[in-house]
């Protein structure tokens, strides 16, 4: 007994180090990136409030740019509405079929302000000023007037954390607008900068050329179809596979992002439960 006490006394510093390091690394290596920041994240009331206060002071900078973007979006939406009333014409390019008379409405948009944002890390996140009480839930998509932004990974009552497209864990289904060939959009720190992401697994049979538009595929329940992702800048074949990897110039300027929308899919549960039941029957 005395021996054990003596051992602890002599090695307490190393033992304390081992214990605290174990706790820290446990949080790092829990491999679920929803909830990954479960206990410590910026949707926390303290962190959220600090960001909100800071934003209250510095939020006036860059408003001109944000206004311009929102005005352009308004103009586009007015045009779209005009066409929708006449019961004709698809939505304006790069913007989703989200409502109106010609389309069934099953996506809900919640406006939000970006309180905190990072672009310099391998895993980038944003903090938004909307949370549970505004109907925001994990797994919802986030878009800006310019295009796709990220996915909500964590919420509290008044704040939420968004995994931005500039996050190596963020994978989104995207397609070539002209042909519908789809693949996985993924950002690779070290390979792509903050203005580009890779679209993987596009079949080699596709005719590609720079400037082709890339939009969301709508195959997941997260994003509606046809939300702008970016344009094809270059492409190269994957060695020994019949796929191209496309370098996409993202349409959203992540460094200056200010106002976004959180998208709620009103038919998500219906769709996932139907799919799950189908898989169950097949087993």
């Amino acid at each position, binding site marked *: 007994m005395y021996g054990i006490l003596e051992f602890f006394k002599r090695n*307490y*510093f*190393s033992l*304390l*180090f081992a214990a*605290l*390091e174990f*706790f*820290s*690394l*446990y*949080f*790092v290596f*829990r491999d679920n990136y929803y909830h*990954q*920041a*479960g*206990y*410590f*994240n*910026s949707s*926390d009331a*303290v*962190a959220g409030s*600090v*960001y909100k206060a*800071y934003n209250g002071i*510095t939020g006036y900078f860059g408003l001109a740019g944000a206004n311009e973007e929102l005005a352009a979006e308004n103009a586009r939406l007015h045009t779209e509405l005009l066409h929708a009333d006449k019961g004709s014409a698809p939505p304006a390019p790069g913007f989703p079929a989200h409502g109106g008379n010609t389309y069934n409405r099953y996506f809900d948009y919640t406006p939000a302000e970006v309180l*905190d*944002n*990072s*672009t*310099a*890390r*391998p*895993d980038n*996140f944003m903090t938004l000023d909307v949370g549970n009480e505004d109907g925001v839930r994990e797994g919802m998509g986030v878009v800006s007037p310019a295009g796709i932004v990220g996915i909500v990974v964590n919420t509290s009552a008044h704040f939420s*954390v968004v995994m931005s497209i500039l996050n190596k864990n963020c994978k989104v289904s995207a397609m070539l607008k002209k042909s519908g060939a789809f693949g996985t959009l993924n950002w690779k*720190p*070290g390979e792509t900068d903050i203005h580009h992401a890779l679209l993987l697994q596009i079949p080699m049979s596709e005719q590609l050329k720079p400037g082709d538009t890339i939009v969301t595929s709508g195959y997941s329940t997260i994003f509606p179809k046809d939300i702008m992702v970016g344009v094809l800048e270059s492409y190269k074949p994957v060695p020994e596979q019949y796929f191209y990897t496309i370098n996409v110039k993202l349409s959203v300027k992540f*460094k200056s992002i200010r106002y976004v929308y959180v998208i709620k899919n009103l038919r998500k549960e219906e769709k996932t439960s139907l799919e799950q039941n189908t898989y169950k029957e097949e087993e």
Partner: protein
Amino acid sequence: MIVTVVVNIIRILVFILLQVTIIKQLDLGSYLNPFLYVICILALPINMNKGWVMFIAFFVGLIIDMFYNTMGMNAAASVFIAYCRPAVLRIYAPQGGYEPTANPTIQSLGLNWTISYYGTLALLHHLLLFFLEALTFSYFFETLAKAIVSSAATTVLILISLLLMQKNPLK
């Protein structure tokens, strides 16, 4: 004694706020990511109980993680430098050892000592943090370069902060 405690608590709060508001928002690109907040761990008195230093490092790291959404990475890196601190202090100890009341400041131990001490530990912190963040060795040299560039920037910011704090009449 009480003055030292209060000064350190204020310093911890001020540098956490500086880190998460100003430095984080600067967004200087992926190579320049200074983590100035390590100063509030490293500037604790030299004779302070090393177990307490480690607890403080852990909680400061967790708070930074909360703001950065890096769950545990900053805590791990901070605890690691708190563990290395006694050894680094031993390596750079002046002849005849430290004065019992010595603080890790330029006034107290000179510019060379300050640069070596803060530089070494900032580099160790940034290396662990950036490799944890990349979670892979496939971008080994990029990550290494980021850690070296960023810890150099951190050290410069620490020196500036120490110089500014010198004028503090409390010291």
